[in-house]
Every structure is written in structure tokens, then in C-alpha cells.
């Protein structure tokens, strides 16, 4: 063997003085040269450097390979991807978007490790341009990584869906896909072609991808449902009934806004019972459906999940109960079917759902609700009892008022509030109108009841006592005494005692005689010197009554 040493030493140029030697970053010098040289042997050196333990050398080798981009080197890089150090992986991920051609070579290579890693990288880099190659792989025979290829097809479709659906909101800065619509169009075209070859590859993810990315107006999707072979259309219809991807479920919903919806979408509405679909439907069903939606949904004669015996209604979150009732009423289900759901809702639904169902049931005059209301009054659930309390008058339950008054003292705040709301019509204004016509015993009971119904009763009574209309002031003061609320409105009585109207002052004097505080006694003494003889007379009478009641003058500062 001719010693390489002799040849090399002889052929190299003159020695360079030490001062001019590049002492800084010598490793970078090496790898820069390896990245730029025309010599193909550099690739072997770089590949060998990938296997070294030194992460810095590895990273430099990766950087040089990515700069040089030799297919053989990239294939080796992909093969080792999972064994690379963190910084080296980051470099690959950073430049990964430009590896399209090389990744295609990796996919087509027979090496399982290279192919698996390439599939992983395609998903990471969201390399949508690889879809035709992936489909080609699926159409090949004996592809060992078939599952991984199918997963990659689905993942690409899903990722693009997220880009289209959420745009900038769903992505971190820098990964926003600017030309998402163009990519979608290309993907749909590829997927549609692939769908027509379904009997060859039998990959449902290809059809699912088309359904995820398509919309009811899309030409490719229309072609699928119109021109594809029966087997393909059946698979697509089956996916509409089973796929839990939001894109597919959205397609089912969106189809209803078309003049001619996909028949498979109708089948999905009728057959699906999975909670994902039910929730998606109720979350996205519009509050005011469009004309086509209304027309189409009226055609829906059955919906499996709306049959109470299937127990699918239990899966509906409480927050969607109201929407469920709205959707139910917009369908073309028969009256008994609807009644069943409404009665279920009254029994088991959330407060909101019960109210919505009750509103509908009132119109339908369903007697079963009365039983439910009476049962619910004994419920230990505060919300349920509160709902039943609110329904007492609506459903004309016997002794409704008595039951309502009882519930004003309920230990459950929700129930007390419901009873107050129901009795809100009976307030101080109504009581003032009625007070004069009631027996004294009832007047006192009304006073107590008013305070339970409306915590603001005293405040409102004071407002009446200070009203601009004299008649109202006098009536309120007398009612306060009759309902035994006069002790709580003493300050307003003091103001009335200084009123310019002598009839008001006289009424105030009469009521103040029953208050019995030192302040009220002082005010009565003051009124004994009033200009009006009727007021003086009333004040003296009140003072006499006060003294007679106490048997002695009022104690200073305290109530008597």
C-alpha cells in the first residue's frame, strides 16, 4: 500500500506562519468546509459525525448537512432523528419545512426506521405536500407502516382543520399558516382522487380527511357523494354517523343549512347517540335557525338520542338543557315523542331546562307536570324545590298561596327567593290599598308577610309616608300603625309631625303616641303648642294615652 502520508505531505502547500492561523472556532472551520466543499466525501464525514457522543459536534454536523442538503445525508439524518441530542433536533425542526424532497425519499425508502421517522417529521413539520406520497404508499402492497401512514394522513388533515378553524388564535406566533386556503384546496383535490381509489387502499382516514376539510358547498365533497362508487359513498356516510372529529360533526350540521342537504347528514342526525355529537349539535345549533335549517330539521322524524329510554339525555350537560328544548321543538318529531322529552326535562333537567320545558308544557296543557311539581316540592335539591315553588301558581296547584307562604320561611335561600318572586305582586302598595278593609288581626299578619316577601318593605313604606300627596302620607302612617310597623318608621313620623299640613301633623301625633320613645314624647310635647287646636288636642290625647299605658313618664333615651 502506498502510504497516504507521503503523498499528502508532499502535495500540500507551504507552511503558514503561526500568526495567521485561525485559532478561533476551529471546529466551525471544519464544518463550514464540509458544508461547502464540492467533495462528496464530506457527506460521509458528516454522517459519521452524527454518531459521535459530543452534542456540539453533532449539532455542527446537522447544521452542515442541512446547509448542504445531500439526499443521502438527509436520509441518514432522518434515520438517526430520535437519537440526536436536543440542540440537533431543534436544528432539524427549525429547517424541517425545506426538507420536502428529502422526506419524500425517506418515505419511499424501504427502511422501516427511516420511514417511521419521516412520518413523524412530516407530522411535526406539517408538510402537507407529502399527502400524495402518503396516499401512494397506502396504495402499495405489504406496507408495514400502514397504521403510521394512516395516522399521518389524519393528522395532516386535522392540523390543517385547526389552522382554518382557529387561524392565529389557535397557534403560537410563527406557525400561522398563511396560505391555508390554498393548501386546503390542494389537499381536498388529492383526497378526492384518493377517495375514488378507496377499494384499492381501503383507508378510511382518507375519506375522513376529505369530510374534515370539506364544507357542504365544496365541489370535491359534492363529487364524492354524487360520483363516487357505492362502496365509497357508504364509507363516507358511515363516517358521518361515527366520526367524532369536530370537522365531520360540523359538516353534518352545516349540511342542514343547504337547500339540498346530504342524505347521509340526515342519517347522522337520526342515528348518532354519542355525547360528542349531541354536545356539538346543541352548542352550535343557532338560536334562530335559517329558513333552510328550519325546513330541513322539520323533516327529521326521529332522533335516537332524543328517546328517553336510550338514556342519552343523561349525557347532555346541564348548561345545554335549554338549547335541547329549543332544538327539540324545531324538529319534526311527533307530539308524544316531544312530550316524553319535555317530561324527562321537567323531572331531571337543570333549572334552566325545566323552565324552558315548562314554558312549552304550559301551552301543551300537560297534566303530568302537576304531579312532578308536587313531587319536586319535597325534593332535597334546592334548585329543584325552587323550581317547583315557582311553578305552584302557574299550574294552579291546590293551596298554592299557602304553600308559597310556608316557603317564605324555608331554610333554603333558593326556595325563599323563588317564593318571594312568586309573591312579588303582593307588595306594600297593594297592602296599603287593602289595609283599611281588613280586620285588625289580618292587618298585623299582612305586615309580617310583607316583611318576608320584600326586605325593602320598610323603606318603601317610608317613601309613601314622605310622598308629595297628602292623602298617601296619611294613609301610609295609619297603615304602618295598623300593620304594627310604626316602630320601624318612627323617623318618618317625626318628619310628618313637622309637616305644614295640620291634618298630617295630627295623624303623626296619633301614631307617635304608640311609639313610646323619648323622642316621640318630646315631639308630642312640642305638638301640644301647635297652632292648630286639633293637632294640640291630638298631641295631648296621645301623651295621655302614652302615660296611661306606661303609668309613668317615658324613661330617658329608651323605648317604653
Amino acid at each position, binding site marked *: 500500500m502506498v*502510504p*497516504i*502520508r507521503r*503523498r*499528502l*505531505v*508532499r*502535495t*500540500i*502547500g507551504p*507552511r*503558514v506562519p503561526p500568526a*495567521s*492561523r*485561525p*485559532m*478561533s*472556532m*476551529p*471546529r466551525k*472551520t*471544519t*464544518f463550514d*468546509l464540509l458544508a461547502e*466543499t*464540492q*467533495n*462528496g*466525501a*464530506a457527506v*460521509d*464525514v458528516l454522517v*459519521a*459525525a452524527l454518531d*459521535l457522543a*459530543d452534542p456540539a*459536534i453533532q449539532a455542527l*454536523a446537522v447544521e452542515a448537512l442541512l446547509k448542504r442538503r445531500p439526499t443521502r445525508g438527509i436520509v441518514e439524518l432522518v434515520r438517526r432523528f430520535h437519537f440526536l441530542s436536543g440542540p440537533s433536533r431543534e436544528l432539524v425542526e427549525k429547517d424541517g419545512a425545506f426538507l420536502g424532497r428529502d422526506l419524500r425519499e425517506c418515505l419511499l425508502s424501504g427502511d422501516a426506521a427511516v420511514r417511521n421517522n419521516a412520518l413523524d417529521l412530516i407530522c411535526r413539520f406539517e408538510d402537507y405536500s407529502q399527502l400524495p406520497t402518503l396516499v401512494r404508499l397506502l396504495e402499495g402492497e405489504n406496507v408495514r407502516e400502514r397504521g403510521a401512514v394512516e395516522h399521518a394522513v389524519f393528522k395532516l388533515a386535522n392540523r390543517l382543520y385547526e389552522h382554518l378553524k382557529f387561524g392565529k388564535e389557535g397557534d403560537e406566533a410563527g406557525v400561522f399558516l398563511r396560505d391555508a386556503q390554498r393548501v386546503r384546496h390542494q389537499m381536498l383535490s388529492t383526497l378526492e382522487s384518493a377517495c375514488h381509489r378507496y377499494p384499492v387502499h381501503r383507508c378510511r382516514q382518507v375519506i375522513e380527511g376529505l369530510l374534515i376539510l370539506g364544507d357542504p358547498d365544496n365541489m370535491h365533497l359534492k363529487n364524492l357523494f354524487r360520483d363516487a362508487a357505492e362502496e365509497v359513498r357508504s364509507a363516507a356516510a358511515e363516517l358521518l354517523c361515527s366520526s367524532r372529529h369536530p370537522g365531520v360533526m360540523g359538516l353534518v350540521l352545516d349540511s342542514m343549512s343547504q337547500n339540498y342537504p346530504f342524505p347521509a347528514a340526515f342519517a347522522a342526525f337520526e342515528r348518532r347517540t354519542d355525547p360528542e355529537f349531541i354536545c356539538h349539535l346543541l352548542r352550535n345549533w343557532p338560536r334562530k335557525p335559517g329558513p333552510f335549517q328550519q325546513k330541513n330539521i322539520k323533516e327529521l322524524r326521529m332522533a335516537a338520542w332524543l328517546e328517553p329510554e336510550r338514556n342519552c339525555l343523561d349525557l347532555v350537560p346541564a348548561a345545554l338543557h335549554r338549547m335541547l328544548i329549543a332544538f327539540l321543538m324545531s324538529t319534526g318529531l311527533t307530539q308524544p315523542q316531544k312530550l316524553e322529552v319535555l317530561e324527562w326535562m321537567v323531572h331531571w333537567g337543570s333549572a334552566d331546562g325545566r323552565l324552558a320545558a315548562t314554558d312549552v308544557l304550559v301551552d301543551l296543557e300537560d297534566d303530568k307536570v302537576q304531579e312532578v311539581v308536587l313531587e319536586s316540592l319535597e325534593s332535597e335539591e334546592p334548585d329543584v324545590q325552587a323550581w317547583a315553588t315557582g311553578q305552584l301558581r302557574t299550574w294552579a296547584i291546590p293551596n298554592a298561596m299557602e304553600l308559597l307562604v310556608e316557603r317564605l320561611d324555608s331554610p333554603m335561600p333558593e326556595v325563599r327567593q323563588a317564593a318571594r318572586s312568586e309573591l312579588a305582586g303582593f307588595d306594600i302598595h297593594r297592602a296599603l290599598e287593602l289595609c283599611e278593609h281588613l280586620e285588625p288581626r289580618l292587618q298585623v299578619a299582612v305586615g309580617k308577610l310583607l316583611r318576608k316577601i320584600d326586605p325593602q318593605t320598610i323603606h318603601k313604606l317610608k317613601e309613601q309616608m314622605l310622598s308629595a300627596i297628602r292623602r298617601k302620607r296619611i294613609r301610609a302612617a295609619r297603615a304602618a300603625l295598623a300593620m304594627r310597623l310604626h316602630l320601624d318608621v318612627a323617623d318618618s313620623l317625626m318628619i310628618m309631625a313637622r309637616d305644614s299640613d295640620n291634618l298630617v301633623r295630627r295623624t303623626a301625633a296619633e301614631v307617635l303616641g304608640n311609639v313610646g320613645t323619648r323622642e316621640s314624647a318630646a315631639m308630642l310635647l312640642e305638638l301640644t303648642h301647635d297652632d292648630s287646636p286639633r293637632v294640640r288636642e291630638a298631641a295631648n290625647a296621645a301623651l295621655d294615652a302614652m302615660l296611661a299605658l306606661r303609668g309613668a313618664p317615658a324613661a330617658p333615651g329608651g323605648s317604653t
Partner: protein
Amino acid sequence: MTTWLFHLTVVAATVVLLWLGVNWLDRFRLIRLRHAQTPQALFLELCRAHHLSRVERELLTVISETCARDKCCLVFVDRQLIAQFGGAHPAQAEQCHELCRRLFGS
């Protein structure tokens, strides 16, 4: 005298021409070697890039002979090869250490 001078001139001219020819051929061979797609040519390129001295190149060539012929350039990326050689040849350990410093930094 004239004849002797004539012969001397002819011999001198022949020697000069021969030297020039050999030198030209060597240069041509070197250029071809540099542009060859071989590990050896790459080795040369790397040596030039690092401005290695004749002694350093010689030593590096010796070290590279511990690898397979087509992997002679590994010495530029794997410092372990130089370190192992230095360990096995204590007389050249110091030179190996200096070479490591030149090719891989501190």
C-alpha cells in the same frame, strides 16, 4: 573552453527544463487530487483550511491511518482518535495535544 561552456549550457538548460516539467506535473497532479471526489482530497482541503504545518500534517496523516482508508477525514471531527493515538504514543503526546487544540479548540 567554448565547447565546455556549450555543454554546460545544454546540461543546465536540460536540468532546468526537467525541473520545470517535474514541477508542472506535480502541480497538475495536486490540482487533480484536490478536485478528486475522494476522502484523500477532502483531507487535503481540511488541512489547508486549518493551515496545518508540515509536521502537523504528517502527524495527522499517521493518525488517520489508524482508521479505514476511506475514513481518513474522521480525525477532523473526532478528537478521540487523536487523543487515543497520543495515549498510545507518549513521545508524540504533546504534539497530539497541540493538534487537538488546533482542530477542536480548547
